[in-house]
């Protein structure tokens, strides 16, 4: 009976094998998980001021579409991507820049001049001039970009 509780050579070696196996598994498993999820957790925050154009191009009270090209790095591939933004100003001094990406499921919205509304063709989301949701499934207003004006030129913070 007493012998059962004692750690003999056989039992010790058996435990040691399991311990080494656990160590190797952890040594392999932890880097493997980091390796797999690594790029997914990487937040790309490009704080680059992109030049949109002259402020005079924005009509008063009407959202105006601007397109900017920007270099985007995904993995080992650098792509040129086009970003579309709607710019709105009521007085020619204060500007807001709205993304044209619907906050519902990511389709592109369009400004319908006759109705003075943004319309998303995918699930009939409707936004007003300033991007607030009027009807349809979108959960929040259109996303906005930070803008600044320098020497009559519009810039937005994007990426």
């Amino acid at each position, binding site marked *: 009976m007493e012998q059962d509780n004692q750690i003999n050579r056989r039992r010790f070696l058996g435990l040691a094998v399991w311990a080494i196996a656990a160590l190797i598994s952890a040594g*392999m498993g932890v*880097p*493997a998980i*980091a*390796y*797999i999820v*690594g*790029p997914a957790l990487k937040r790309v925050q490009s704080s680059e001021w992109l030049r949109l154009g002259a402020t005079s191009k924005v009509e008063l009270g009407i959202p105006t579409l601007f397109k900017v090209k920007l270099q985007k790095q995904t*993995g*080992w*591939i650098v792509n040129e991507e086009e970003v579309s933004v709607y710019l709105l100003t009521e007085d020619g001094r204060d500007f807001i820049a709205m993304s044209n990406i619907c906050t519902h499921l990511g389709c592109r919205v369009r400004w319908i001049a006759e109705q003075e509304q943004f319309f998303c063709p995918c699930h009939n989301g409707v936004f007003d001039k300033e991007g607030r949701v009027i009807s349809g499934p979108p959960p929040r207003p259109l996303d906005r970009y930070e803008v600044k004006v320098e020497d009559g030129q519009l810039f937005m913070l994007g990426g």
Partner: protein
Amino acid sequence: MGVRIAIWLDERLAWRQVWEAIFLRKIPKVNWLYTLGSASLFVAINQIITGILLTIYYVPTPDHAYDSVQYITTQIPAGWLIRGLHHWGASAMVILVVLHMLRVIWHGAYKYPRELTWFSGVFLLLIVIGFGFTGYLLPWDQKAYWATTVGTRIAGSPPIIGDWILRVIRGGEELTAITLARFFGVHVWVLPTGLLLLILLHMYLVVRIGISAAPKREE
């Protein structure tokens, strides 16, 4: 709880019997040279795991292969480790299986009734060499390119059929995207399938027949 699950499973799977047959089987008195087979198996498992992980980012085309390997090595967390394990594991694998073979020759362990174990081992050795040859091209750097140029040229050196062999291996006259793609396909699909099937046979025979005792001088 754990014990009850173990009993429940054992009633249906008889896993205890399998476990005993594999790990608690009787073996003759042996020495450290007899661990070379297990060591090969261990490194093979390492190669399989790290190899699967590498395919998550690796792209086997000439315009992406090199960049994707650099991306793995420099940008992905632990990418240098995964690639390093696969790279050095490959060399270790070749060394271990050759030493394993030498031990079997040295002890005459290939004789009756273990001929099939030996034959499957010979094919396993060829597969390991095939892995080394195809895997060497995949990083698509200068060393890979020229080593494969030379290697395929050597394969094409026999008379009459040599040129045909060279063209089949390269997938054409030159070393191109086709070569890279087929080396990748062979490296990740064809050879692993052969390796796993032969390992199963090899290990079944080791368990079924048992390993040979070291020969004694008086015999």
